């Protein structure tokens, strides 16, 4: 049994050291893999707030991942073609600036998450899963049938967006951006988890009546958690789009929702670094097993089954005892 904080530090360092070595050895592909892991980890960190800490089994987080991606795609494609997004009632231009794109992605995802939460949090269990899934699928089909941004074929952005003072086309520099964002969000999550809000949210997951009986409404806690959760996954979607310089309806599909959920199950739900460990393992498996066989998802399925049956806390849960969540 390892102390969870030590383990977290190790995971954070590993995710940093591997691409740095790859950079020294001139292996850009490995840097790209690490970048992908960091971005997917961020999407998982977002979902973890709702699913892990809040106990809200959202099967629709692709909604936010896709919204982040399309935010990037729409803003950047208009900037690339020098056409405004709209002219009346006021002029909105596209942009290639990452910070602006991130901000817009966060605001839009948060807003949509708030609305979806408002509508879905009245339901529980299977109904909640279905309602969140339905929203994701709605946007999926909408993006397929909306030709302006590529429809079914998706949309390419030719040059990666810009960040002041950095060359974002350099893989290691783009990795740096994603890694720092991931760390900032994880820091924010750790604060949040030990705050009043975190205590109340964690308690509401364990026993909703307990929280109501001390005068706190679980609905409001969960709505706020769901909104922040969606915003973080939306930010990850914008980064993912920038990594690939491509967006497509797949970002909205339920496969994507499922994958983000898999990171959490593999790594450990309600563990600060669970999604990071999970996403890294996922990328590793995809790369190693994917190289061996086209049907690597079968192996992934088997591994998932083993984790669910024998290692309920995921990787982090099975090698480290739960650190006091507060204090």
């Amino acid at each position, binding site marked *: 049994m390892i102390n969870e904080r030590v383990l977290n530090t190790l995971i954070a360092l590993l995710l940093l050291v591997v691409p740095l070595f790859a950079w020294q050895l001139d292996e850009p592909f490995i840097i790209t893999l690490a970048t992908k892991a960091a971005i997917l980890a961020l999407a998982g960190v977002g979902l973890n707030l709702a699913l892990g800490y809040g106990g809200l089994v959202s099967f629709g987080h692709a909604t936010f991942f896709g919204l982040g991606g399309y935010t990037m795609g729409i803003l950047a494609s208009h900037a690339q073609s020098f056409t405004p997004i709209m002219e009346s009632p006021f002029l909105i231009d596209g942009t290639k600036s990452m910070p602006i794109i991130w901000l817009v992605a966060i605001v839009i995802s948060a807003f949509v998450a708030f609305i979806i939460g408002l509508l879905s949090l009245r339901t529980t269990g299977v109904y909640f899963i279905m309602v969140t899934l339905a929203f994701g699928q709605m946007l999926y089909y909408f993006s397929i049938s909306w030709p302006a941004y590529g429809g079914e074929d998706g949309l390419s952005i030719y040059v990666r967006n810009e960040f002041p003072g950095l060359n974002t086309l350099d893989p290691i520099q783009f990795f740096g951006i994603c890694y720092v964002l991931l760390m900032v969000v994880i820091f924010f999550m750790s604060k*949040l988890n030990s705050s009043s809000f975190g*205590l*109340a949210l964690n308690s509401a997951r364990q*026993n909703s009546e307990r929280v109501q009986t001390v*005068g706190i409404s679980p609905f409001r806690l969960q709505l706020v958690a769901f909104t922040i959760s969606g915003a973080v996954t939306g930010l990850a979607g914008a980064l993912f789009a920038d990594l690939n310089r491509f967006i497509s309806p797949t970002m909205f599909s339920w496969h994507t929702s499922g994958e983000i959920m898999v990171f959490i199950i593999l790594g450990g739900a309600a563990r600060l670094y669970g999604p990071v460990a999970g996403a890294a393992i996922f990328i590793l498996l995809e790369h190693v097993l994917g190289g061996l066989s086209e049907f690597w998802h079968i192996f992934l399925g088997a591994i998932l089954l083993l984790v669910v049956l024998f290692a309920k806390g995921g990787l982090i849960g099975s090698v480290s005892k*739960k650190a006091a969540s507060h204090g």
Partner: protein
Amino acid sequence: MGNVILDVRNIHKQFGALKASDGISLDLRQGEIHALIGPNGAGKSTLIAQIAGRLKPDSGCVHFLDQDISLKSTAQRANLGLGRTFQVSALAMENTVLENVVLGALGKRGKVFSFFKSVMHDKNLLSQARATLERVQLIDDSNRITAELSHGQRRQLEVAVALTLAPKAFLMDEPMAGMGAEGSKKLTKLLRQLKQDAPILLVEHDMDAVFALADRISVLVYGKIIATGSVDEIRSNPDVRKAYLGDEEAT
């Protein structure tokens, strides 16, 4: 007898054909312990749930501190000053004992939507939480995970959390159940002190505790209150003996 704090008026609640509450009226007055007794399945927990807000009555209403609270949520009722303990412990089992009482203190204080300050370093909340743990004699177990507590200790913790709310009335559903003789005796003593702070509507099976504590007793059978009175009145009431105490003494 003091002012009426809690007033339950003609509550009906039916589950299918079963009348769990069949026109129940009762009140709770300042300074008293009002015990609610009755055989298993009589509808005691159902009544508590309707007063606390978890269940909506089919008809009838609940007044608390001269206000009709029938349409308020559980959380709103708690904020108005209704503190309750559950027959089956409702605690955050993965959390520590201290975290559970800090949650209570947090509910009382409000300002739940604070995202950056560590709640377990909040001196005010901690001192309130520790004071209540002292009071139920659980302070030595502060840092244990709640799931590790014995059944009796969980009951004590339930009471401690209710205490952090400094409620204006307590609803307690079988707080002594499964506690053991020693634990029951301690809790009996604590409840006697507590009624100075706020009156208690006490559902309890432990007749020794009820007779030792209650200022008034109501007897609930098949969703109906068949008698309300002092300990002596209830002990000597022939209907009560037939319907309830009779079986008790036979066993």
